[in-house]
């Protein structure tokens, strides 16, 4: 009998073409997703006089630069040019791409799974750090830079040094109003934004197993905010049920064969991790960030921390800098901080379940600050409209936008003004992330909805469902 192996080790082994002379491995890539930010890689390929080796294994999706207004008007000619350039690059290389107007246009990490192109046991890469999202299906998925994108386009392979393995177990039952977003923010707050550096994370435990696929994607999506390029969750019946019947998922006898293979992927009993960490799910509350790193997060019931109480000198200075940028004072209650805008969107939290959770809070109430909803994909938007969620949002005064990365990264021009404070369902509260001088508080969709209808960071558990 072979030695017990982890999910990561099984997927890695199946994709290892060879080991290089210096110990790194050349891995086969099942699926590469490309977006408009890929131009440096296409330029490099052209310069080297090379073609895309397997255009059938790259999928193009317009998300970073696309406008999200109803008319899809680029915010500037330069932004419009980026969209055109991507179209030219994919057309020239024979790559299928999903553009505005196509029901499968949307954010790459929402669309890939939705199409069934993301499958358990696959090795998936994309020039975007939130590629770890696809690990929710038990794929090995990680973000890469432009040089690596060019390499994948030219060879359909990638060189990797094997990371160490970290398991984070979240055990127990989540309380009411506590979501996958709160779990991952709590993990990062507890263990630090660099806990996963050099490691591949496997998220395990009863609370993780109890999450829907949407929730699991939210958790894996933010593995990069915990420092890791990749986060994985063992595939199970929840995974298979979610994938069954999707457009590109295997069908018939091949589906049965695939499921049999996928059932062999979860980590074996006794397999070894370099590090094991755990968190009690039952103790968690809805979370909110107060600073400019995702690790600077606390339960909504808490107060803005005092830098004087920081555990070390570096954090003391960092916290003071964060509070200065965020315009907050030590000791302020988080619950009650006034916000200027609310954004519900992004690859972290704009799937159908996220929109349902937000709509449940919004229903029968009015937004008292400007608030946007940008669906994770056009398909999610259409489904939400079929369920009547759009009417709940628009009746409350929300803007119901088209799909794209939008105000999570602001590349398309969807930005906050300097000094504006937002409650956002996104993944990064970095300095300037939502625009120069913009102040971001990361929250779950339900918490974002609560902020929209009260104009303040608010413990959603205090708002009874209407």
């Amino acid at each position, binding site marked *: 009998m072979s030695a017990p192996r982890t999910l990561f080790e099984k997927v890695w082994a199946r994709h290892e*073409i*060879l080991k290089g002379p*210096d*110990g*790194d491995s*050349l891995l*086969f890539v099942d699926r590469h997703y490309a977006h408009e*930010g890929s131009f*440096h890689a296409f*330029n*490099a390929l052209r310069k080297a006089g090379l073609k895309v080796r397997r255009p059938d294994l790259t999928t193009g999706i317009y998300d970073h*630069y696309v406008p999200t207004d109803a008319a899809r008007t680029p915010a500037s000619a*330069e932004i419009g040019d980026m969209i055109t350039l991507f179209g030219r690059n994919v057309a020239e290389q024979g790559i299928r791409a999903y553009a505005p107007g196509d029901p499968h246009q949307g954010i790459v990490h929402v669309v890939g799974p939705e199409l069934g192109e993301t499958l358990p*046991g696959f090795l998936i890469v994309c*020039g*975007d*750090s939130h590629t770890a999202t696809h690990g929710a299906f038990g794929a090995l998925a990680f973000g*890469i*830079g*432009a*040089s*690596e994108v*060019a*390499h994948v386009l*030219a*060879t*359909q*392979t990638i*060189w990797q*040094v094997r*990371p160490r393995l970290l398991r984070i177990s979240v055990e127990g039952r989540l309380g009411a109003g506590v979501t996958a977003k709160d779990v991952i923010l709590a993990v990062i707050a507890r263990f630090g*934004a*660099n806990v996963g*550096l*050099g490691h591949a994370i496997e998220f395990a435990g009863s609370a993780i197993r109890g999450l829907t696929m949407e929730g699991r994607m939210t958790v894996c999506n933010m593995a*990069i905010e915990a*420092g890791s*390029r990749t986060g994985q969750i063992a595939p199970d019946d929840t995974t298979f049920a979610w994938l069954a019947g999707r457009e590109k998922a*295997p069908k018939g006898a*091949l589906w049965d*064969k*695939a499921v*049999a*293979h*996928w059932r062999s992927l979860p980590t074996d009993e006794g397999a070894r991790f370099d590090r094991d960490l755990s968190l009690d799910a039952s103790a968690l509350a809805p979370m909110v960030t107060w600073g400019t*790193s995702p690790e600077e997060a606390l339960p909504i019931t808490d107060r803005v921390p005092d830098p004087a109480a920081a555990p070390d000198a*570096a*954090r003391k*200075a*960092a916290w003071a*800098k964060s509070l200065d940028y965020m315009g907050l004072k030590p000791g302020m209650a988080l619950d009650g901080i006034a916000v200027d805008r609310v954004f519900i969107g992004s690859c972290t939290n704009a799937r159908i379940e996220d929109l349902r959770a937000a709509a449940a809070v919004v229903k029968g109430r009015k937004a008292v600050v400007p608030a946007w909803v940008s669906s994770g994909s056009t398909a999610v938007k259409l489904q939400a409209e079929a369920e009547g969620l759009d009417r709940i949002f628009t009746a409350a005064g929300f803007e119901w936008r088209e799909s794209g990365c939008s105000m999570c*990264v*602001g*590349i398309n021009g969807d930005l906050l003004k*300097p000094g504006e404070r937002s409650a956002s369902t996104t993944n*990064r509260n*970095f*300095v*300037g992330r939502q625009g*120069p001088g913009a102040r971001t508080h990361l929250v779950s969709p339900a918490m974002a909805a609560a902020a929209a209808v009260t104009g303040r960071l608010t413990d959603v558990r205090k708002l009874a469902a209407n």
Partner: protein
Amino acid sequence: MAMQPFTALDAVAAPMPTPNIDTDQILPARFLKKPLGPGYDKYGFADLRFDAAGNEKPDFVLNNPPYRGAGIIVAARNFATGSSREAAVYALLALGVRCVIAPSFGDIFYSNSTKNGLLPVILPEEAVNRLLALLAGKPGTKLAVDLAAQTVTGPGDLAFRFEIDASRKMRLLEGLDDIQLTLKYRPEIEAFERAYAAAPFGA
């Protein structure tokens, strides 16, 4: 994106003691659409370096005369965390930075930098803290980095050894292009692909 080799460097080092300096700060997203070429240096740390009117902010380390044009940055933990944007590496190179020394790096940046001839050096936190104190105390201090020997040395007997994967070291020293290297393995890749396609889902 041409890979320039990295062998050794003797340069002024600038201290950045804040942890978690992310790639959004190194290269703000609105500059991602800019083509490479002359003027790319303007985008590096743009919101930290310039105010809204485009004037230099005096409190940013690289605007301080002794550190201006520094070839090395010494930073706190988790440097260049966040987005996979390789443009953060291009911006540092355009600013003349060829080496960053820190206790830890964002994993994607670490990989991106080694593909572009920028050396990321990982040293223990206490060594980095010593360097940060030294650089703050004596602005304009030079450090010497030798990749073959895997050492960082400075004034007096200041000397540290660092670890780096053999594969990354070799590529940096020789300025090797990954694609050309990989294409030598074409027969192995094709054989793998045939076997893989013949047994979908592990059958």
